[in-house]
Protein backbone atom coordinates (compact mmCIF):
# COMPACT_ATOMS: atom_id res chain seq x y z
CA UNK A 1 0.00 0.00 0.00
CA UNK A 2 2.89 2.40 0.63
CA UNK A 3 3.83 2.88 -3.01
CA UNK A 4 0.64 4.87 -3.49
CA UNK A 5 1.48 7.81 -1.27
CA UNK A 6 5.09 8.77 -1.87
CA UNK A 7 7.04 10.28 1.00
CA UNK A 8 6.84 13.82 -0.37
CA UNK A 9 3.04 13.76 -0.30
CA UNK A 10 3.00 12.55 3.28
CA UNK A 11 5.57 15.17 4.25
CA UNK A 12 3.42 17.96 2.79
CA UNK A 13 0.42 16.52 4.63
CA UNK A 14 2.22 16.34 7.97
CA UNK A 15 3.83 19.75 7.58
CA UNK A 16 1.82 21.71 5.03
CA UNK A 17 3.56 24.79 3.67
CA UNK A 18 1.75 28.13 3.82
CA UNK A 19 -0.83 26.74 6.25
CA UNK A 20 -2.50 29.59 8.12
CA UNK A 21 -4.15 32.91 7.46
CA UNK A 22 -3.11 36.34 6.18
CA UNK A 23 -3.91 39.43 8.23
CA UNK A 24 -5.32 41.63 5.44
CA UNK A 25 -5.64 39.45 2.36
CA UNK A 26 -6.59 41.02 -0.97
CA UNK A 27 -8.50 37.91 -1.96
CA UNK A 28 -10.23 35.27 0.16
CA UNK A 29 -11.84 32.28 -1.48
CA UNK A 30 -13.48 29.25 0.05
CA UNK A 31 -13.69 25.96 -1.73
CA UNK A 32 -15.34 22.73 -0.72
CA UNK A 33 -15.66 19.20 -1.93
CA UNK A 34 -19.36 18.35 -1.81
CA UNK A 35 -18.59 14.64 -1.85
CA UNK A 36 -16.78 14.58 1.45
CA UNK A 37 -17.43 17.96 3.05
CA UNK A 38 -13.77 18.96 2.97
CA UNK A 39 -13.16 22.69 3.01
CA UNK A 40 -10.32 24.93 1.97
CA UNK A 41 -9.88 28.67 2.48
CA UNK A 42 -7.31 30.35 0.28
CA UNK A 43 -5.94 33.83 1.00
CA UNK A 44 -3.81 35.91 -1.35
CA UNK A 45 -1.97 39.22 -1.30
CA UNK A 46 -1.46 40.62 -4.77
CA UNK A 47 0.79 43.69 -5.18
CA UNK A 48 0.37 46.62 -7.57
CA UNK A 49 2.41 44.86 -10.23
CA UNK A 50 0.01 41.95 -10.16
CA UNK A 51 2.40 39.59 -8.43
CA UNK A 52 1.25 37.12 -5.77
CA UNK A 53 3.03 38.60 -2.82
CA UNK A 54 1.85 36.24 -0.14
CA UNK A 55 -0.41 33.24 0.03
CA UNK A 56 -1.87 31.03 2.76
CA UNK A 57 -4.51 28.36 3.15
CA UNK A 58 -6.45 26.73 5.95
CA UNK A 59 -8.92 23.91 6.04
CA UNK A 60 -9.27 20.23 6.59
CA UNK A 61 -8.80 17.53 4.07
CA UNK A 62 -7.11 14.34 3.07
CA UNK A 63 -3.42 13.92 2.34
CA UNK A 64 -3.99 14.43 -1.36
CA UNK A 65 -5.94 17.69 -1.05
CA UNK A 66 -3.65 19.09 1.64
CA UNK A 67 -0.46 18.15 -0.21
CA UNK A 68 -1.82 19.60 -3.41
CA UNK A 69 -2.71 22.89 -1.68
CA UNK A 70 0.70 22.98 -0.02
CA UNK A 71 2.51 22.46 -3.34
CA UNK A 72 0.30 24.86 -5.28
CA UNK A 73 0.71 27.70 -2.79
CA UNK A 74 4.48 27.19 -2.87
CA UNK A 75 4.36 27.39 -6.62
CA UNK A 76 2.39 30.62 -6.94
CA UNK A 77 4.15 32.73 -4.32
CA UNK A 78 6.07 35.44 -6.15
CA UNK A 79 4.47 34.60 -9.47
CA UNK A 80 2.79 37.25 -11.68
CA UNK A 81 -0.90 36.57 -12.17
CA UNK A 82 -0.26 36.11 -15.89
CA UNK A 83 1.92 33.13 -14.99
CA UNK A 84 -0.52 31.83 -12.36
CA UNK A 85 -3.17 31.80 -15.06
CA UNK A 86 -1.15 29.24 -16.97
CA UNK A 87 -1.32 26.65 -14.22
CA UNK A 88 -3.68 23.95 -15.37
CA UNK A 89 -5.26 21.06 -13.59
CA UNK A 90 -2.89 18.64 -15.27
CA UNK A 91 0.08 20.60 -13.89
CA UNK A 92 -1.25 20.04 -10.39
CA UNK A 93 -1.68 16.31 -11.01
CA UNK A 94 1.79 16.11 -12.52
CA UNK A 95 3.32 17.76 -9.49
CA UNK A 96 1.53 15.36 -7.14
CA UNK A 97 3.08 12.61 -9.20
CA UNK A 98 0.88 9.81 -7.93
CA UNK A 99 -1.89 7.78 -9.42
CA UNK A 100 -5.18 9.57 -8.70
CA UNK A 101 -8.31 7.49 -9.09
CA UNK A 102 -11.38 9.20 -10.58
CA UNK A 103 -13.04 9.22 -7.17
CA UNK A 104 -10.14 11.20 -5.70
CA UNK A 105 -9.74 13.73 -8.53
CA UNK A 106 -11.85 16.31 -6.70
CA UNK A 107 -9.52 16.07 -3.70
CA UNK A 108 -6.45 16.63 -5.87
CA UNK A 109 -7.99 19.56 -7.74
CA UNK A 110 -9.76 21.36 -4.89
CA UNK A 111 -6.90 23.82 -4.41
CA UNK A 112 -6.43 24.76 -8.07
CA UNK A 113 -10.18 25.06 -8.60
CA UNK A 114 -10.41 27.32 -5.56
CA UNK A 115 -7.48 29.37 -6.81
CA UNK A 116 -9.14 29.78 -10.16
CA UNK A 117 -12.32 31.08 -8.56
CA UNK A 118 -10.30 33.38 -6.30
CA UNK A 119 -8.71 35.09 -9.25
CA UNK A 120 -11.42 34.84 -11.86
CA UNK A 121 -12.09 38.60 -11.69
CA UNK A 122 -8.43 39.43 -12.17
CA UNK A 123 -7.01 37.11 -14.76
CA UNK A 124 -8.17 35.33 -17.86
CA UNK A 125 -7.54 31.69 -17.19
CA UNK A 126 -6.28 29.60 -20.02
CA UNK A 127 -8.87 27.42 -21.62
CA UNK A 128 -7.09 24.24 -20.62
CA UNK A 129 -7.88 24.86 -16.96
CA UNK A 130 -11.53 24.38 -17.76
CA UNK A 131 -10.99 20.92 -19.13
CA UNK A 132 -11.27 17.76 -17.11
CA UNK A 133 -7.88 16.09 -17.29
CA UNK A 134 -7.83 12.90 -19.30
Amino acid at each position, binding site marked *: MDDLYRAEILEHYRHPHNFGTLEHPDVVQEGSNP*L*CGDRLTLMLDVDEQGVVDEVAFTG*RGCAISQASASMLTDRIRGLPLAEVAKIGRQDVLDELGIEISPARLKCALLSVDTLRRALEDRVAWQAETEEEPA
Partner: protein
Amino acid sequence: MVAYLPSDGPDPVADCDVAVPRTGSGTALEAGPDVPDAAEIARIDPLDPLVIRRDFPIFERDFGGRTVAYLDSAATSLKPRVVVDAVNDYNTRHTANVHRGIYALGEEATALYEGARERVARFIGARDRHEIVFVRNATEAINLVAATWGRRNIGAGDTIVLTELEHHSNLVPWQMLIQEKDADLEFVPIDDEGRLVQESYDALLRTHPKLVAFTHVSNGIGTINPVREMVDRAHRAGALVLVDGAQAVPHMPVSVAELDCDFYAFSGHKALGPTGSGALWARRELLEAMPPYMGGGEMIREVHLRSTTYNDVPWKFEAGTPDIAAAIGLGAAVEYLVGLGMDRVRGHERLLTAYALDALAHGVPGVTLHGPRAGDDRAGVVSFNLPGVHPHDVATLLDREAVAIRAGHHCTQPLHERLGEAATARASFGVYSTTDDIDRLVAGLRKVQALFS
Protein backbone atom coordinates in the same frame (compact mmCIF):
# COMPACT_ATOMS: atom_id res chain seq x y z
CA MET B 1 -20.23 9.38 21.36
CA VAL B 2 -18.05 6.68 22.75
CA ALA B 3 -14.40 7.13 21.95
CA TYR B 4 -12.54 3.90 22.47
CA LEU B 5 -9.06 4.87 23.47
CA PRO B 6 -6.14 2.81 24.74
CA SER B 7 -5.97 2.95 28.51
CA ASP B 8 -2.28 3.80 28.65
CA GLY B 9 0.52 5.19 26.52
CA PRO B 10 0.86 8.57 24.85
CA ASP B 11 -2.19 10.29 23.48
CA PRO B 12 -2.01 9.63 19.74
CA VAL B 13 -4.23 12.58 18.96
CA ALA B 14 -2.15 15.05 20.94
CA ASP B 15 1.04 13.73 19.35
CA CYS B 16 0.11 14.08 15.73
CA ASP B 17 1.03 17.11 13.69
CA VAL B 18 -2.23 17.62 11.90
CA ALA B 19 -4.95 18.60 14.28
CA VAL B 20 -7.83 16.19 14.24
CA PRO B 21 -10.57 17.19 16.62
CA ARG B 22 -11.70 14.39 18.84
CA THR B 23 -15.41 14.09 19.29
CA GLY B 24 -17.48 13.10 22.22
CA SER B 25 -16.66 12.40 25.78
CA GLY B 26 -13.68 10.12 25.24
CA THR B 27 -14.86 7.37 27.56
CA ALA B 28 -12.25 4.63 27.78
CA LEU B 29 -13.65 1.13 27.54
CA GLU B 30 -12.00 -1.98 28.85
CA ALA B 31 -11.84 -5.11 26.72
CA GLY B 32 -15.29 -6.59 26.78
CA PRO B 33 -15.10 -10.08 28.28
CA ASP B 34 -18.51 -10.78 26.76
CA VAL B 35 -17.34 -10.21 23.19
CA PRO B 36 -16.76 -13.61 21.58
CA ASP B 37 -13.70 -14.30 19.47
CA ALA B 38 -13.86 -15.37 15.81
CA ALA B 39 -13.96 -19.09 16.58
CA GLU B 40 -16.74 -18.64 19.10
CA ILE B 41 -18.70 -16.49 16.64
CA ALA B 42 -18.35 -19.19 13.98
CA ARG B 43 -19.81 -21.66 16.49
CA ILE B 44 -22.76 -19.58 17.70
CA ASP B 45 -23.55 -17.54 14.56
CA PRO B 46 -27.14 -18.32 13.48
CA LEU B 47 -26.00 -17.91 9.85
CA ASP B 48 -23.00 -19.41 8.13
CA PRO B 49 -21.68 -16.57 5.97
CA LEU B 50 -19.23 -18.92 4.22
CA VAL B 51 -22.16 -20.97 2.93
CA ILE B 52 -24.10 -17.80 2.08
CA ARG B 53 -21.15 -16.49 0.07
CA ARG B 54 -21.57 -19.34 -2.40
CA ASP B 55 -24.83 -17.65 -3.43
CA PHE B 56 -23.07 -14.38 -4.30
CA PRO B 57 -21.21 -14.53 -7.63
CA ILE B 58 -19.01 -11.54 -6.77
CA PHE B 59 -17.03 -13.69 -4.35
CA GLU B 60 -15.87 -15.73 -7.35
CA ARG B 61 -14.01 -12.69 -8.62
CA ASP B 62 -10.31 -12.45 -7.90
CA PHE B 63 -8.96 -9.27 -6.31
CA GLY B 64 -5.22 -9.87 -6.41
CA GLY B 65 -5.36 -13.40 -5.06
CA ARG B 66 -8.19 -12.83 -2.60
CA THR B 67 -11.88 -12.05 -2.47
CA VAL B 68 -13.12 -8.56 -1.80
CA ALA B 69 -13.74 -7.69 1.84
CA TYR B 70 -16.93 -5.81 1.03
CA LEU B 71 -17.76 -3.56 3.96
CA ASP B 72 -20.07 -1.10 2.25
CA SER B 73 -23.45 -2.82 2.45
CA ALA B 74 -25.04 0.34 3.83
CA ALA B 75 -24.39 1.94 0.43
CA THR B 76 -25.66 -0.99 -1.55
CA SER B 77 -25.74 -4.72 -0.92
CA LEU B 78 -24.16 -7.41 -3.03
CA LYS B 79 -26.60 -9.44 -5.12
CA PRO B 80 -27.22 -13.17 -4.79
CA ARG B 81 -27.49 -15.35 -7.88
CA VAL B 82 -31.24 -15.84 -7.38
CA VAL B 83 -31.75 -12.11 -7.88
CA VAL B 84 -29.55 -11.98 -10.95
CA ASP B 85 -31.41 -15.01 -12.31
CA ALA B 86 -34.84 -13.53 -11.63
CA VAL B 87 -33.92 -10.37 -13.55
CA ASN B 88 -32.45 -12.43 -16.38
CA ASP B 89 -35.44 -14.72 -16.46
CA TYR B 90 -37.81 -11.81 -16.96
CA ASN B 91 -35.58 -10.32 -19.66
CA THR B 92 -35.01 -13.59 -21.47
CA ARG B 93 -38.22 -15.59 -21.03
CA HIS B 94 -41.10 -13.40 -19.82
CA THR B 95 -40.50 -10.03 -21.47
CA ALA B 96 -43.62 -7.94 -21.86
CA ASN B 97 -45.13 -4.84 -20.36
CA VAL B 98 -47.34 -5.26 -17.31
CA HIS B 99 -51.10 -4.73 -17.01
CA ARG B 100 -51.49 -4.43 -20.77
CA GLY B 101 -50.73 -7.47 -22.90
CA ILE B 102 -53.66 -9.71 -23.75
CA TYR B 103 -51.28 -12.54 -24.44
CA ALA B 104 -49.37 -15.14 -22.50
CA LEU B 105 -46.15 -13.18 -22.09
CA GLY B 106 -47.99 -10.12 -20.87
CA GLU B 107 -49.89 -12.15 -18.32
CA GLU B 108 -46.70 -13.84 -17.13
CA ALA B 109 -44.92 -10.51 -16.72
CA THR B 110 -47.88 -9.08 -14.80
CA ALA B 111 -48.03 -12.15 -12.57
CA LEU B 112 -44.30 -11.89 -11.81
CA TYR B 113 -44.52 -8.15 -11.13
CA GLU B 114 -47.58 -8.37 -8.90
CA GLY B 115 -46.17 -11.51 -7.27
CA ALA B 116 -43.13 -9.47 -6.28
CA ARG B 117 -45.45 -6.88 -4.74
CA GLU B 118 -47.14 -9.61 -2.72
CA ARG B 119 -43.75 -10.91 -1.50
CA VAL B 120 -42.59 -7.44 -0.50
CA ALA B 121 -45.87 -6.82 1.34
CA ARG B 122 -45.51 -10.03 3.34
CA PHE B 123 -41.82 -9.35 3.96
CA ILE B 124 -42.51 -6.07 5.78
CA GLY B 125 -45.67 -7.22 7.48
CA ALA B 126 -48.13 -5.21 5.40
CA ARG B 127 -51.72 -6.42 5.57
CA ASP B 128 -52.48 -5.61 1.96
CA ARG B 129 -50.31 -5.72 -1.17
CA HIS B 130 -52.16 -2.65 -2.45
CA GLU B 131 -50.26 -0.68 0.16
CA ILE B 132 -46.94 -1.31 -1.62
CA VAL B 133 -45.92 1.26 -4.23
CA PHE B 134 -42.86 0.29 -6.27
CA VAL B 135 -40.35 3.13 -6.54
CA ARG B 136 -36.70 3.39 -7.47
CA ASN B 137 -35.39 3.72 -3.92
CA ALA B 138 -36.14 5.17 -0.49
CA THR B 139 -35.33 8.64 -1.78
CA GLU B 140 -38.10 8.43 -4.33
CA ALA B 141 -40.49 7.01 -1.76
CA ILE B 142 -39.94 9.97 0.57
CA ASN B 143 -40.14 12.49 -2.26
CA LEU B 144 -43.40 10.90 -3.31
CA VAL B 145 -44.89 11.42 0.16
CA ALA B 146 -43.58 14.99 0.39
CA ALA B 147 -44.91 15.90 -3.04
CA THR B 148 -48.35 14.32 -2.61
CA TRP B 149 -49.41 13.95 1.00
CA GLY B 150 -47.13 16.80 2.03
CA ARG B 151 -48.34 19.28 -0.56
CA ARG B 152 -51.92 18.57 0.29
CA ASN B 153 -51.62 18.49 4.08
CA ILE B 154 -48.79 20.82 5.08
CA GLY B 155 -49.65 24.50 5.19
CA ALA B 156 -48.22 27.80 6.39
CA GLY B 157 -47.06 27.63 9.98
CA ASP B 158 -47.25 23.82 10.19
CA THR B 159 -44.35 21.93 11.70
CA ILE B 160 -42.56 18.77 10.55
CA VAL B 161 -40.29 17.08 13.07
CA LEU B 162 -37.11 15.39 11.80
CA THR B 163 -33.94 14.32 13.60
CA GLU B 164 -30.22 15.06 13.48
CA LEU B 165 -29.63 11.50 12.28
CA GLU B 166 -31.38 11.85 8.95
CA HIS B 167 -29.96 10.94 5.59
CA HIS B 168 -30.21 13.81 3.12
CA SER B 169 -33.06 11.92 1.46
CA ASN B 170 -35.19 12.39 4.58
CA LEU B 171 -34.18 16.01 4.93
CA VAL B 172 -34.03 17.76 1.57
CA PRO B 173 -37.55 16.78 0.36
CA TRP B 174 -38.97 18.31 3.54
CA GLN B 175 -36.84 21.44 3.18
CA MET B 176 -38.22 21.83 -0.35
CA LEU B 177 -41.77 21.36 0.92
CA ILE B 178 -41.60 23.84 3.80
CA GLN B 179 -40.01 26.47 1.57
CA GLU B 180 -42.95 26.16 -0.76
CA LYS B 181 -45.51 26.13 2.05
CA ASP B 182 -43.90 28.52 4.52
CA ALA B 183 -43.95 25.77 7.13
CA ASP B 184 -41.30 24.86 9.74
CA LEU B 185 -38.84 22.07 10.44
CA GLU B 186 -37.73 21.04 13.92
CA PHE B 187 -35.04 18.52 14.78
CA VAL B 188 -34.68 15.97 17.55
CA PRO B 189 -31.06 16.17 18.73
CA ILE B 190 -28.85 13.18 19.51
CA ASP B 191 -26.90 12.58 22.71
CA ASP B 192 -23.18 11.88 22.86
CA GLU B 193 -23.67 8.19 22.13
CA GLY B 194 -25.75 8.93 19.05
CA ARG B 195 -29.20 8.18 20.45
CA LEU B 196 -32.14 10.50 19.95
CA VAL B 197 -32.90 12.61 23.02
CA GLN B 198 -36.41 11.41 23.77
CA GLU B 199 -37.22 14.30 26.13
CA SER B 200 -36.54 16.71 23.30
CA TYR B 201 -38.74 14.63 21.03
CA ASP B 202 -41.58 14.85 23.54
CA ALA B 203 -41.10 18.59 23.83
CA LEU B 204 -41.31 18.94 20.04
CA LEU B 205 -44.45 16.78 19.97
CA ARG B 206 -46.10 19.26 22.33
CA THR B 207 -45.93 21.80 19.49
CA HIS B 208 -48.39 19.57 17.57
CA PRO B 209 -46.43 18.80 14.40
CA LYS B 210 -48.35 17.50 11.43
CA LEU B 211 -45.69 14.93 10.55
CA VAL B 212 -42.76 13.23 12.21
CA ALA B 213 -40.18 11.65 9.88
CA PHE B 214 -37.16 9.74 11.15
CA THR B 215 -34.89 6.91 10.24
CA HIS B 216 -35.37 3.41 11.62
CA VAL B 217 -31.60 2.79 11.61
CA SER B 218 -28.94 5.48 11.18
CA ASN B 219 -26.85 4.96 8.05
CA GLY B 220 -24.22 7.20 9.62
CA ILE B 221 -23.63 5.69 13.07
CA GLY B 222 -25.81 2.60 13.32
CA THR B 223 -28.31 3.75 15.95
CA ILE B 224 -31.53 1.69 15.96
CA ASN B 225 -34.33 4.01 16.98
CA PRO B 226 -37.21 2.89 19.22
CA VAL B 227 -39.70 3.24 16.39
CA ARG B 228 -42.83 1.79 18.00
CA GLU B 229 -42.59 3.97 21.12
CA MET B 230 -41.89 7.06 19.03
CA VAL B 231 -44.81 6.28 16.73
CA ASP B 232 -47.20 5.85 19.65
CA ARG B 233 -46.22 9.18 21.15
CA ALA B 234 -46.45 10.95 17.79
CA HIS B 235 -49.93 9.55 17.22
CA ARG B 236 -51.04 10.67 20.65
CA ALA B 237 -49.82 14.15 19.67
CA GLY B 238 -51.83 13.98 16.46
CA ALA B 239 -48.94 13.60 14.01
CA LEU B 240 -48.49 11.08 11.22
CA VAL B 241 -45.19 9.21 11.11
CA LEU B 242 -42.92 8.41 8.18
CA VAL B 243 -40.11 5.96 8.85
CA ASP B 244 -37.05 5.69 6.61
CA GLY B 245 -36.36 1.97 6.68
CA ALA B 246 -33.51 1.83 4.16
CA GLN B 247 -31.01 0.54 6.73
CA ALA B 248 -33.46 -1.61 8.69
CA VAL B 249 -35.29 -3.77 6.16
CA PRO B 250 -32.15 -5.59 4.93
CA HIS B 251 -30.87 -6.34 8.43
CA MET B 252 -33.65 -7.15 10.89
CA PRO B 253 -37.27 -8.29 11.10
CA VAL B 254 -39.55 -5.39 10.17
CA SER B 255 -43.33 -5.36 10.46
CA VAL B 256 -45.10 -2.15 9.56
CA ALA B 257 -48.17 -3.50 11.34
CA GLU B 258 -46.22 -3.84 14.58
CA LEU B 259 -44.46 -0.51 14.15
CA ASP B 260 -47.87 1.09 13.55
CA CYS B 261 -46.33 3.89 11.47
CA ASP B 262 -48.12 5.60 8.58
CA PHE B 263 -45.46 5.60 5.87
CA TYR B 264 -42.45 3.31 5.54
CA ALA B 265 -39.83 3.80 2.83
CA PHE B 266 -37.00 1.51 1.80
CA SER B 267 -34.57 0.77 -1.01
CA GLY B 268 -34.46 -2.66 -2.63
CA HIS B 269 -30.85 -2.36 -3.71
CA LYS B 270 -29.66 -2.30 -0.10
CA ALA B 271 -31.69 -5.46 0.58
CA LEU B 272 -29.97 -7.74 -1.96
CA GLY B 273 -32.24 -6.48 -4.75
CA PRO B 274 -31.29 -4.74 -7.99
CA THR B 275 -30.62 -1.02 -8.21
CA GLY B 276 -33.76 0.77 -9.31
CA SER B 277 -35.92 -1.22 -6.90
CA GLY B 278 -37.55 0.10 -3.76
CA ALA B 279 -40.89 0.45 -2.10
CA LEU B 280 -43.12 2.86 -0.28
CA TRP B 281 -45.59 1.33 2.13
CA ALA B 282 -48.44 3.51 3.37
CA ARG B 283 -51.81 2.91 4.97
CA ARG B 284 -54.33 2.28 2.25
CA GLU B 285 -56.64 5.07 3.33
CA LEU B 286 -53.75 7.52 3.16
CA LEU B 287 -52.73 6.34 -0.29
CA GLU B 288 -56.30 6.62 -1.49
CA ALA B 289 -56.63 10.19 -0.25
CA MET B 290 -53.29 11.29 -1.67
CA PRO B 291 -53.14 12.98 -5.07
CA PRO B 292 -51.05 11.22 -7.73
CA TYR B 293 -47.29 11.78 -7.96
CA MET B 294 -46.54 11.71 -11.69
CA GLY B 295 -49.06 11.73 -14.48
CA GLY B 296 -48.99 9.37 -17.44
CA GLY B 297 -49.89 5.88 -18.47
CA GLU B 298 -50.84 3.17 -16.00
CA MET B 299 -51.85 5.63 -13.26
CA ILE B 300 -55.16 6.45 -14.96
CA ARG B 301 -58.64 4.97 -15.17
CA GLU B 302 -60.07 7.20 -17.87
CA VAL B 303 -58.47 10.01 -19.80
CA HIS B 304 -60.28 12.68 -21.79
CA LEU B 305 -58.74 15.70 -23.42
CA ARG B 306 -59.42 17.91 -20.42
CA SER B 307 -59.91 15.53 -17.53
CA THR B 308 -58.67 12.26 -16.08
CA THR B 309 -59.79 9.89 -13.39
CA TYR B 310 -57.09 7.98 -11.61
CA ASN B 311 -56.35 4.32 -11.17
CA ASP B 312 -56.70 2.45 -7.89
CA VAL B 313 -53.83 2.30 -5.44
CA PRO B 314 -51.01 1.48 -5.73
CA TRP B 315 -51.01 1.88 -9.52
CA LYS B 316 -52.13 5.49 -9.16
CA PHE B 317 -48.54 6.17 -8.07
CA GLU B 318 -46.80 4.10 -10.73
CA ALA B 319 -47.03 6.26 -13.83
CA GLY B 320 -45.33 4.92 -16.93
CA THR B 321 -43.76 1.52 -17.45
CA PRO B 322 -42.10 0.66 -14.14
CA ASP B 323 -38.73 -1.01 -13.68
CA ILE B 324 -40.36 -4.41 -14.02
CA ALA B 325 -37.13 -6.41 -13.90
CA ALA B 326 -35.96 -4.61 -10.77
CA ALA B 327 -39.25 -5.20 -8.99
CA ILE B 328 -39.14 -8.90 -9.86
CA GLY B 329 -35.53 -9.00 -8.66
CA LEU B 330 -36.57 -7.39 -5.40
CA GLY B 331 -39.24 -10.06 -4.99
CA ALA B 332 -36.52 -12.71 -5.34
CA ALA B 333 -34.29 -10.85 -2.90
CA VAL B 334 -36.86 -10.68 -0.12
CA GLU B 335 -37.72 -14.34 -0.69
CA TYR B 336 -34.03 -15.15 -0.24
CA LEU B 337 -33.93 -13.13 2.99
CA VAL B 338 -37.08 -14.85 4.25
CA GLY B 339 -35.32 -18.15 3.56
CA LEU B 340 -32.40 -17.09 5.73
CA GLY B 341 -34.72 -15.80 8.43
CA MET B 342 -34.52 -12.15 9.43
CA ASP B 343 -34.06 -13.01 13.12
CA ARG B 344 -30.97 -14.98 12.11
CA VAL B 345 -29.77 -12.15 9.88
CA ARG B 346 -30.02 -9.76 12.81
CA GLY B 347 -28.33 -12.26 15.12
CA HIS B 348 -25.44 -12.65 12.67
CA GLU B 349 -24.96 -8.93 12.19
CA ARG B 350 -25.26 -8.25 15.88
CA LEU B 351 -22.39 -10.64 16.59
CA LEU B 352 -20.30 -9.08 13.82
CA THR B 353 -20.98 -5.58 15.09
CA ALA B 354 -19.87 -6.48 18.61
CA TYR B 355 -16.79 -8.18 17.17
CA ALA B 356 -15.97 -5.20 14.94
CA LEU B 357 -16.38 -2.58 17.68
CA ASP B 358 -14.16 -4.65 19.96
CA ALA B 359 -11.56 -5.43 17.27
CA LEU B 360 -11.29 -1.77 16.25
CA ALA B 361 -11.19 -0.49 19.82
CA HIS B 362 -8.42 -2.86 20.83
CA GLY B 363 -6.62 -3.37 17.54
CA VAL B 364 -6.36 0.18 16.24
CA PRO B 365 -4.68 2.58 18.67
CA GLY B 366 -6.46 5.89 19.10
CA VAL B 367 -9.45 5.08 16.92
CA THR B 368 -12.63 7.06 17.58
CA LEU B 369 -15.77 4.99 17.14
CA HIS B 370 -19.06 6.77 16.64
CA GLY B 371 -22.51 5.65 17.68
CA PRO B 372 -23.94 3.50 20.46
CA ARG B 373 -21.92 0.62 21.85
CA ALA B 374 -22.85 -2.90 20.77
CA GLY B 375 -26.29 -3.96 21.92
CA ASP B 376 -29.98 -4.04 21.13
CA ASP B 377 -30.00 -0.58 19.61
CA ARG B 378 -26.86 -0.86 17.49
CA ALA B 379 -26.89 -2.03 13.88
CA GLY B 380 -24.01 -3.17 11.67
CA VAL B 381 -22.83 0.27 10.63
CA VAL B 382 -19.49 1.25 12.18
CA SER B 383 -18.17 4.74 11.51
CA PHE B 384 -14.78 5.74 12.83
CA ASN B 385 -11.88 8.15 12.57
CA LEU B 386 -8.16 7.55 12.86
CA PRO B 387 -6.13 10.33 14.47
CA GLY B 388 -4.18 12.26 11.86
CA VAL B 389 -5.44 10.32 8.85
CA HIS B 390 -8.27 11.56 6.69
CA PRO B 391 -11.01 8.98 5.94
CA HIS B 392 -10.44 9.42 2.21
CA ASP B 393 -6.85 8.33 2.59
CA VAL B 394 -7.98 5.43 4.78
CA ALA B 395 -10.39 4.24 2.09
CA THR B 396 -7.90 4.66 -0.75
CA LEU B 397 -5.22 2.71 1.10
CA LEU B 398 -7.60 -0.04 2.23
CA ASP B 399 -8.70 -0.42 -1.37
CA ARG B 400 -5.14 -1.58 -2.10
CA GLU B 401 -5.85 -4.47 0.26
CA ALA B 402 -9.19 -5.22 -1.44
CA VAL B 403 -11.03 -3.91 1.61
CA ALA B 404 -13.98 -1.77 0.45
CA ILE B 405 -15.26 0.81 2.91
CA ARG B 406 -17.03 4.14 2.55
CA ALA B 407 -15.39 7.46 3.38
CA GLY B 408 -17.13 10.82 3.49
CA HIS B 409 -20.25 12.12 5.17
CA HIS B 410 -22.45 9.28 3.91
CA CYS B 411 -25.20 11.72 2.87
CA THR B 412 -25.52 12.81 6.51
CA GLN B 413 -23.76 16.15 6.58
CA PRO B 414 -25.76 17.58 9.51
CA LEU B 415 -24.96 14.46 11.55
CA HIS B 416 -21.27 14.92 10.77
CA GLU B 417 -21.47 18.56 11.85
CA ARG B 418 -22.88 17.29 15.12
CA LEU B 419 -20.03 14.75 15.39
CA GLY B 420 -17.52 17.51 14.67
CA GLU B 421 -16.05 15.59 11.74
CA ALA B 422 -16.07 16.65 8.10
CA ALA B 423 -15.92 13.00 7.19
CA THR B 424 -15.76 9.54 8.72
CA ALA B 425 -14.71 6.12 7.51
CA ARG B 426 -17.54 3.59 7.61
CA ALA B 427 -17.61 -0.19 7.59
CA SER B 428 -21.04 -1.78 7.24
CA PHE B 429 -22.10 -5.40 7.15
CA GLY B 430 -24.46 -7.76 5.40
CA VAL B 431 -25.51 -11.39 5.51
CA TYR B 432 -22.27 -12.40 3.72
CA SER B 433 -19.91 -10.48 6.03
CA THR B 434 -17.41 -12.43 8.11
CA THR B 435 -15.06 -11.89 11.01
CA ASP B 436 -12.29 -12.35 8.45
CA ASP B 437 -13.51 -9.22 6.62
CA ILE B 438 -13.20 -7.34 9.90
CA ASP B 439 -9.76 -8.82 10.63
CA ARG B 440 -8.63 -7.63 7.20
CA LEU B 441 -10.04 -4.18 7.96
CA VAL B 442 -8.13 -3.99 11.24
CA ALA B 443 -4.91 -5.26 9.65
CA GLY B 444 -5.32 -2.71 6.85
CA LEU B 445 -5.89 0.11 9.32
CA ARG B 446 -2.70 -0.82 11.15
CA LYS B 447 -0.81 -0.57 7.87
CA VAL B 448 -2.37 2.84 7.25
CA GLN B 449 -1.27 3.97 10.68
CA ALA B 450 2.24 2.71 10.08
CA LEU B 451 2.43 4.64 6.82
CA PHE B 452 1.20 7.86 8.41
CA SER B 453 3.19 7.52 11.64
